[in-house]
């Protein structure tokens, strides 16, 4: 397995270089270093000298990809792309345009994002699987039909509606929890309760239907018939046999998102005032802050690759037949 992991990590390097190049190209196709300077220096009374100074101070006064005025290796290294990309591989994200340490900012904002995303993920997993198992248990009955109809209905509603509706009912009308805000430690409970609840409800429809499909596929297999023939109860069959054998497709969709939980959710965090990472990239795109955009895309790619590797590893845990070579 070690050899497999090393090989996957080595594969990741060219992927990350490609992602870097793509991010860089897309960003500078839309923005120029002058635009970035103007955005940072403000609308009023900006002089061309101030723009030049800003670019020089922030390292944007170099050529983008190739420095034809330099010699030797500097043709490639004395460029914005190299200067801004090389250090990423050492997880040195540098400073944002407004002078903040990006790594520290990510570190600070990651925890509130996780405080919402992790309980939503765990509670969601529990609710979706339970609900899907229940539908499977009552398959081909009125209850199943009603459940599926409910899922379709829930899938059809926009997530924004859940947020605004949830805030209206739970916070504004019933006064159970604050409408928005955040606190650290135990005080965070009352702030995360509603976003987690809405996060879980918002995905009940699609996720439960997906799990139901997986379980229904398993329920027709030979080993299930054998288990029933042995006289096991339906609940026993469902939880001990079907759930266990459905783990591979479940893990395929679930494990890959675990590392990305750190990245937060834009809508939820904006409406609930959660100081997480959800809006960091969008805010940076609006502020034309290449440092932050670059760092977040790079981090997202690393976490996604990590998620895929973790998924592979998880297969070996739930299915002894799988070997990573």
């Amino acid at each position, binding site marked *: 397995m070690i050899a497999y992991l090393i090989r996957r990590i080595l594969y990741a390097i060219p992927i990350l270089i490609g992602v870097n190049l793509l991010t860089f190209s897309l960003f500078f196709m839309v923005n120029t270093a002058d635009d970035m300077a103007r955005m940072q220096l403000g609308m009023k009374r900006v*002089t061309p000298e101030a723009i030049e100074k800003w670019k020089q101070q922030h390292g944007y006064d170099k050529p983008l990809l190739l420095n034809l005025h330099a010699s030797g290796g500097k043709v490639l290294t004395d460029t914005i792309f190299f200067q801004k990309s090389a250090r990423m591989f050492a997880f040195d994200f540098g400073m944002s345009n407004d*002078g*903040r*340490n990006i790594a520290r900012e990510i570190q600070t904002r990651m925890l509130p994002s996780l405080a919402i995303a992790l309980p939503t993920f765990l509670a969601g997993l529990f609710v979706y699987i339970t609900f899907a198992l229940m539908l499977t248990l009552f398959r081909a009955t009125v209850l199943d039909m009603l459940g599926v109809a409910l899922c379709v209905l829930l899938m059809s509603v926009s997530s924004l509606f859940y947020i605004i509706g949830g805030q209206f009912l739970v916070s*504004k009308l019933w*006064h159970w*929890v604050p409408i*928005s805000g955040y606190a650290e430690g135990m*005080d965070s409970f*009352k702030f995360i309760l509603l976003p987690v609840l809405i996060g879980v409800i918002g995905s009940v429809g699609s996720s439960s239907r997906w799990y139901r499909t997986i379980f229904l596929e398993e329920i027709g297999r030979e080993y299930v018939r054998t288990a029933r023939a042995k006289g096991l109860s339906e609940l026993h069959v469902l939880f001990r046999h079907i759930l266990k054998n459905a783990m591979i497709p479940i893990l395929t969709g679930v494990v890959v998102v675990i590392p990305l939980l750190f990245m937060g959710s834009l809508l939820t965090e904006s409406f609930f005032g959660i100081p997480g990472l959800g809006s960091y990239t969008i805010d940076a795109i609006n502020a034309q802050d290449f440092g932050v955009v670059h760092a977040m895309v790079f981090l997202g790619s690393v976490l996604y690759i990590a998620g895929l590797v973790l998924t592979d590893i998880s297969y070996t845990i739930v299915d002894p037949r799988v070997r990573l070579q």
Partner: protein
Amino acid sequence: MKCLYYVPHALLLLLLGACNEGGLWNNPYPVNDQGKSIYYSAFSERPKHLDPASAYSENEYIFLAQIYQPPLQYHFLKRPYALVPQAASAMPAVSYLDQSNRPLPDDAPADKVAFSVYEIRLRPDLHYQPHPAFARNANGNLEYHALTARDLRNIHTLNDFPHSGTRNVLAADYVYQIKRLAHPAIHSPIVGLMSEYIVGLKEYVTTLQQAKEKYPGRFLNLHDYPLEGVQIVDDHTYRIKIHGKYPQFSYWLAMSFFAPMPVEAERFYAQPGMAERNLVLDWWPVGSGPYYLSENDPNRRMVLARNPNFSGETYPDEGEAGDREAGLLADAGKPLPLIDKVVFSLEKETIPYWNKFLQGYYDAAGISSDSFDQAVQVSVSGEANVTDEMKAQGIQLSTSVATSTMYMGFNWLDPVVGGASERATKLRRAISIAVDFEEFISIFANGRGISAQSPIPPGIFGYREGEAGINHYVYDWVNGAPRRKAIHEARQLLAEAGYPDGLDEKTKQPLVIYLDTTVSGVGSKSRLDWLRKQLEKINLQLVVRSTDYNRFQDKIRKGDTQMFYFGWNADYPDPENFLFLLHGAQGKVAKGGENASNYHNPEYDHLFERMKNMENGPERQKIIDEMLEILRRDAPWIWGQHPKDYVLRHAWLHNSKPNKMANNNVKYLRIDPAQREELRNRWNQPKLAPLWLGGLALVFLAGWLWRVLWQREQAR
């Protein structure tokens, strides 16, 4: 299944636990803060800069204005806006010199004045906020000015430094800050403008640049580099020497750019390892104002705490007519600030912000378009007031016209709509009549604005009320109010311009007008459709060229536009700050200035040069009237509107009076915490019935499912 029965109970218990010792469940603030004199407000966008040399936006000033003390400030109550001393003990003594530095009389004509000298005497009792940069050890040396990596190991915020100190504010600190405007690493937005006035500042920029290149990475102590135009007279007096006569300079002295900066602070933050921890002056201000930044988490909240070293300022004892009746002088003579702490929470979305205001968790709030009908009703006479629902909560409304102008500019360099020809002038006037800004304000701003008659908004010298102040090229004075000219007059003008029925006389092709804008998408479609409809009234076709912000700015810089939306917020309450937007020397394409429409009229420019350095008075008003007449005749802008700000406040918030020029109003506010607690408790009692009903429904459902399942198992 049994566990399902306990879910509502568990949920209830958890909620009770979360409500912190009997506080309201939906209270977003710590229970310990109940009953305290804390002002709760919100911000929607995190500030970019908190360094007084580089901050220039309103969302930065709401913090900085409470923290820093420039020499002057605007009187809290008096209108029109008047400057009064803040850190200064009196208004600056201004003297004039000729080219040979010989004194001139106070009434010397502006063209004879080669230099103006502002002598500013500071109050001797000013002290900085507690800050580790001032902490001294037992030997009397600065404690945290030689920090090593080891010292910084457990330092993450300023509060992690165990000791702090303070010191008296000196004239040298004000001089130091003026020098910082030229610092190559700070990028002050006003260094270009100030270099034209402060003697020697232009050369000083080069001096500092060279010093930075000579000693890269080394801390630049600006006290070692003298600046000719700024002199320390004694510990509490300094002089600023500027070129010529520039009466508006006093207004700049009321802005944070001219606040004091202790060299200890800059040296403290310049130490290695501080920037990596986000411990920088641009993020952690060091001021002498009524508050200091005690918590800085712009992703969540910013907290200002009372500066224990602040003293010597009292609530004003005079205001304008009606202030006493409105209770705005009830606290006259009381020491400031009246509130101990200010909590600004980040609210990106308007819906949660508005609902929290209604629940009493914000003390004041603006009104978004979504909430306007719920909050405000407009009487037949056009007077705005709060709705009965708001009245029942004791909510009060304040309105004020912003010192801003939102306009549509014509590009003077464009061959179709630009230039001084009669054809183009009549075309612009026809479009100005057709675009009905009263309708725009009514539809898209819920009536929150007044249509502009010139670039100068109300409250600024030069603005005229009544018939004398209307743009008679677009309006008629009818029954005591301006009325937009009939559309047939616009069509007539268009025909005279050579476009009868919107067709070019020569080519017989319809005239197409292009609007460049950054707005796009569904949200702005209605506004753009409305604008198309306005031009259709005179048979002109409007083509909207939506583009991103960068390309739009690029087009403006290159003059590749025909019509565009723009706006301007006043830096200071002087007509010069609006009329310079049309000064030829400020042309965007030719000079890179602020005249985005590239308007150029030598007669106007000449009058502007005369007017800009004059003191307010009848002679200045006369020149302004002449200038406005030229502008209205030439119509380089569709004058657009001056937005009106509506602010709601709860009954427990006192001394709230809109002041569009000053941002340091928090020190005057007063809160009645007992009334706030009582009303919050009345408004926010949790409703438990849905919780129990939901729990019961869940239990019933679980029981029923269990029964069905049991019956199925029995049947097998």
